[in-house]
């Protein structure tokens, strides 16, 4: 079962992933990494992937939610 993907190109990113998020904060990744994880239910949990610049969400969650949480 595949997982949703959202990625940002940050100053630490060497993977060259295509930026898909409208957020312009370059260190958004670090902000997310340090944020508390929403725990209302499994579907809303962040999936943090430990890769230098990437994290993924379950199906149905979009990049807009990421930005609103990390702004």
């Amino acid at each position, binding site marked *: 079962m*595949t997982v949703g993907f959202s990625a940002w190109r940050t100053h630490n990113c060497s993977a060259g992933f295509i930026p898909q998020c409208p957020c312009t904060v370059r260190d958004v990744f670090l902000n997310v990494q340090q944020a508390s994880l929403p725990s209302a239910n499994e579907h809303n*949990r962040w999936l943090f992937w430990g*890769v230098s610049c990437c994290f993924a969400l379950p199906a*149905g969650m979009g990049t807009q939610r990421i930005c609103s949480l990390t702004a």
Partner: protein
Amino acid sequence: MRGESFRLKKPDEIAKMSHSGEILGACLEHVANHVAPGVTLNALDREADTFIRDHGCIPGFIGYDGFPKSICISVNNEVVHGIPSERAVQEGDIVSLDCGLILDGWWADSGLTVPCGTVAQEMQDLITVTQEALYRAIEVARPGAHIGDIGHTVQTYVESHGYSVVKHYVGHGIGRDMHEPPQVPNYGKPGTGNELKPGYVIAIEPMVNMGRDGVRTLDDNWTVVTQDGSWSAYAEHTVAITEDGPHVLTVRPAERSLLASRKCAVG
């Protein structure tokens, strides 16, 4: 991230994952053999669920983030995460089967796309290219290669045939949890991303659209379809990276000899 942090798997752990993978490979072949005109998606789900339980395993998908069935079945323009229903497949459909199970705490995750009866040649070509993209990606998944090499291999092969790879969904690490780091995109640049080492176990899963790469999720919050309505195919294997190269843990009986001839360990 769900569950434990990512860590390399030991040889004995890979051996255990091989057991779960072998059962999943047999399960998928069993379900694929039941795909025929008039068969409902729920009937295919029951075949998968029964097979898994009869072999002493736990169906992994049911209840995972609320997914209601034991297998994802995606038809035609559906890319992934289709929910089985009373819909009956029709002659000419292409049917993507994606299943996961747990044995002794170890996950296996795999899938394939099969034709229902006789399909148009262009649809058979789509299936063939998708499966071949997976095999080519597996061949490069060896120590010293990078995650980006896998994605690059998939993308260049798929796009050379005029198709597109889905970028919004990716493969993943797998082990005690179905979804572990790292992400395994179906696109990328050579030499980028994590360097593969013995002990990595990853699910490689090309998703290939006949048209453009855009996708959207239906109101059921699961079923992912192509934005342009074009048809889509998918293939997946759980692969362990060993000193000797890629070890396909979820090999299906019918593809064992083929994979063994392609620089891959199987079973």
